[in-house]
């Protein structure tokens, strides 16, 4: 039986630790939001209580959108993320399907190679890649990042989809094969439509990773007109020793919104994808 006291003790046991983690996790975002709507007079006055806003203003947002290329960076980021995600899903499927369904010599070697490539971090490759991009004359074009992001996203999508594909029952495909459908037809018309949840998981991750990417964008994109949000914010909103904190925080907040929105719609897929690799072990 749950007594009144027991209930209080239970609430304390849940909300004391959970509340602590929540405050720590969310405070930087609160601080970002609150800074972005404070007038400079409040921001740089040490005698004002800092945790609340006294006279909210949208000036930093107006300045950000009118004085910097923030909207253009946002467009660039979206374009790159969408195209790179699409390429990675297609190429990832082309790797994952045979590895999940076909028996052929070398399959396990390819699977291991893909896992290994997925784990190769960018700092190991960025210097030679920078030279390759230069020789291809792709510096300062969005193509440079659209081409290089899939180097990390393809192995990732292939790996995640491979796991998902294996959970789809084979019976429908076998029936289609008996009815005379070719392997390509079977894959395209029978199998792939069954895998929408897998594509959503992989797509969200790939999109988030593209938005998050910084190193390649920093190196390949040095002109304001082609920059993505993370690089634009770091390279152009921080000017010398003077920080435009209001604008910076407005930019950081706006730049986080697309990812946060997509994430909030598909949070269950995201968590499923996050835990897919490890929970099955």
């Amino acid at each position: 039986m749950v007594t009144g006291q027991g209930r209080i003790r239970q609430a304390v046991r849940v909300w004391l630790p959970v509340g602590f983690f929540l405050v720590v996790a969310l405070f930087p975002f609160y601080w970002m939001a609150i800074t972005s709507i404070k007038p400079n007079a409040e921001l740089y006055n040490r005698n004002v209580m800092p945790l609340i806003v006294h006279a909210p203003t949208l000036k930093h947002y107006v300045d950000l959108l009118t004085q910097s290329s923030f909207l253009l960076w946002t467009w660039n980021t979206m374009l790159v993320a969408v195209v790179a995600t699409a390429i990675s899903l297609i190429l990832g499927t082309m790797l994952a399907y045979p590895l999940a369904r076909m028996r052929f010599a070398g399959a396990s070697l390819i699977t291991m190679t893909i896992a290994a490539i997925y784990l190769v971090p960018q700092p190991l490759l960025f210097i030679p890649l920078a030279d390759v991009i230069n020789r291809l004359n792709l510096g300062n074009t969005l193509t440079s990042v659209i081409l290089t992001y899939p180097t990390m996203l393809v192995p990732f999508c292939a790996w995640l989809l491979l796991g998902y594909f294996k959970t789809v029952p084979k019976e429908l495909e076998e029936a289609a094969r008996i009815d005379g459908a070719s392997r390509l037809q079977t894959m395209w018309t029978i199998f792939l439509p069954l895998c929408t949840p897998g594509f959503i998981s992989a797509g969200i991750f790939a999109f988030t990773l593209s938005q998050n990417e910084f190193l390649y964008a920093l190196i390949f994109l040095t002109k304001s007109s082609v920059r993505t949000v993370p690089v634009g914010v770091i390279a152009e909103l921080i000017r010398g020793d003077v920080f435009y904190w209001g604008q910076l925080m407005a930019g950081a907040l706006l730049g986080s919104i697309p990812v946060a929105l997509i994430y909030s719609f598909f949070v269950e897929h995201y968590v499923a994808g996050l835990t897919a690799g490890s929970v099955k072990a």
Partner: protein
Amino acid sequence: MTIASERLPVLAQAARRRVPLSVVLDRQSVFSWLMMALPLAFLAALVGYPFFYGILLSLEDRPVAHTGTFVGLKNFVTDAHDPIFWRAAINTFVYTGVATLLKMVGGLGLALAMNQHFRMKNLVRALLLLPFIVPTVLSTVAWLWMLDPAFSVVNRLLVTLGWPKPGPSWLGDPTLAMVSIIIINTWRGLPFYGITLLAGLQTVPAELYEAASIDGAGGWARFRFITLPLLRPIILIVTLFSVIFTFADFQLVYVLTHGGPANATQLFATYAFDIAMGAGQLGLGASVALAMLPALALLIVALTIYLRRE
């Protein structure tokens, strides 16, 4: 079929020649390799080639926009005599080790706290993951502002709590700068551990705990002898993943300290970037980046083998 073709090789060859293309294409191996050809070629061109080209670069004296000259292991000898290189090496190991430990312990705590019944659990879980999903650079800029030398909100809170003014110089003091990047890396990565381990916890059958309780096991004993052993595989995978990406971290340090003050937070990745992109020494930079390879290769091979055992 087999017997017939052995006895009549000529006829069999004629028959094989007549196998329609569609049948050949439908063979598992042919279909598979054709399907994988494009993505494999892509990865060979943009991961395989740069990887080996990077090794070649590390053996060259190669200023940016010039042709390289082969110098053998000279770059690595230069690294070995460079105190900043060793500083970066030690920093990388300290950063990875301490941050991983904090994330693991904190993540386990978070998972245990979340593995209770309470309302709005899904909302809480979604909110807790925010640090992990928001672009690192953007959340790190918020931390940069929170640790600002003049207007740090962290210091203002500390001073209110009685810390002597003006509070610690988070990014100006070499030790504190290291502490700061470790804390922020932990802040960002802890939810990943927590939510993954939570998913693992939820697969532990409740009967096990009940049986143990009946046998008189206390809270700690249940944790030590049921929870931990069952979570071990997940802890291992999550940790290996996170170690690899912490070891090669770049963004967080680049934004927060640029490796400073006086190289106190320089990591392999940021130092390689400084040499290659800042000083324009592609060969020497490649050698610093490649210095990460032995440790990384070990981790990657371990994790790949483990993942495959699944």
